[in-house]
């Protein structure tokens, strides 16, 4: 992937796009209000797109060529449960990784 024009297109487009999102109101719109229906949908973009991205990776991992792997599945569920219950991202990552590494070493 390194050195490809595609990578630079992605970096630059994301740079412009992210700045555009941040500048949209502050720079251009002023303090006029957005329509409620739009705000209501925007509130759920991150919480929708991240699970959509990650669920297929958990159920059909790349490393096992798409075969469901009980160890990875367990690590994922532990990470989710810890993140949800403690709201602590790093504790969740740490325990998830521990389960993954620990179980891989055991079995």
């Amino acid at each position, binding site marked *: 992937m390194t050195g490809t024009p595609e990578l630079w297109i992605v970096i630059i487009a994301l740079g412009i796009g992210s700045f555009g999102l941040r500048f949209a109101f502050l720079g251009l719109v002023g303090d006029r209000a957005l329509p409620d229906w739009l705000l209501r949908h925007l509130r759920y973009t991150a*919480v929708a797109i991240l699970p959509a991205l990650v669920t297929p990776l958990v159920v059909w991992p790349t490393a096992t060529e798409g075969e469901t792997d009980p160890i990875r599945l367990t690590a994922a569920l532990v*990470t989710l449960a810890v993140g949800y219950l403690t709201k602590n991202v790093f504790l969740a990552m740490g325990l998830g990784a521990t389960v993954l590494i620990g179980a891989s070493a055991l079995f």
Partner: protein
Amino acid sequence: MAGDSVMSSYWRGLRDGLPFLIVVGPFGMLFGVLATEAGLAIHETLAFSVVVIAGAAQFTALQLLTENAPTLVVIASALAVNMRMAMYSASITPHLGGLPLWKRGIAAYFLVDQTYAASILDYEKNPDQTIHQKFAYFLGVMTPICPPWYVVTLLGAWLGESIPPSLGLDFALPIAFIAMIGPLLRTPAHRIAALTAAVLALCFAWVPYNLGLIIAGLGGMIAGAQTEVRLGIKP
């Protein structure tokens, strides 16, 4: 003196931003490691953090690049993850909207989760500040968050170059994402949005060009918005 109070706003912001180093440090480091593991050169990894300056969106783009997703899907998905920045922009405009354009440009570039959260809290707690004090506070919060983001990315990239690719980091990115999802599931609407998106992503995994991701994301957003209306949830 007005100058004094502007400086004291800056220092107050810096102090309030400092705890976020604990979050930004490991996160940027992880991005650096995973990006080099995925095959990016050090300068490419650093460029990512400087140009895009948004953690979750950078991770999203990285994951899709390793899946060889089409460029447009990579960009659309990562921007979707960043959509909340537009809400931050809207919400902070009543406070900083009166600044000259170039200062608004600076504020926009540095408007990330942590700078937004700390600043809006302070503006609401101390409503009597002048716009210059508010801007100084914002720059103060930004100081221990954004420049360190570049530095730890670079450290991570160096570290990543020395880690052999066989170390089983393939699942580190999914684990990182899942850990980020947990705290987002604040209300029933958020939980239903996430669940719907996850189920749709599995159902539409067969759609070419990774477009299943976009379908699932939109489906999740609609489900979340509908739940909010039906249950009368205050966001």
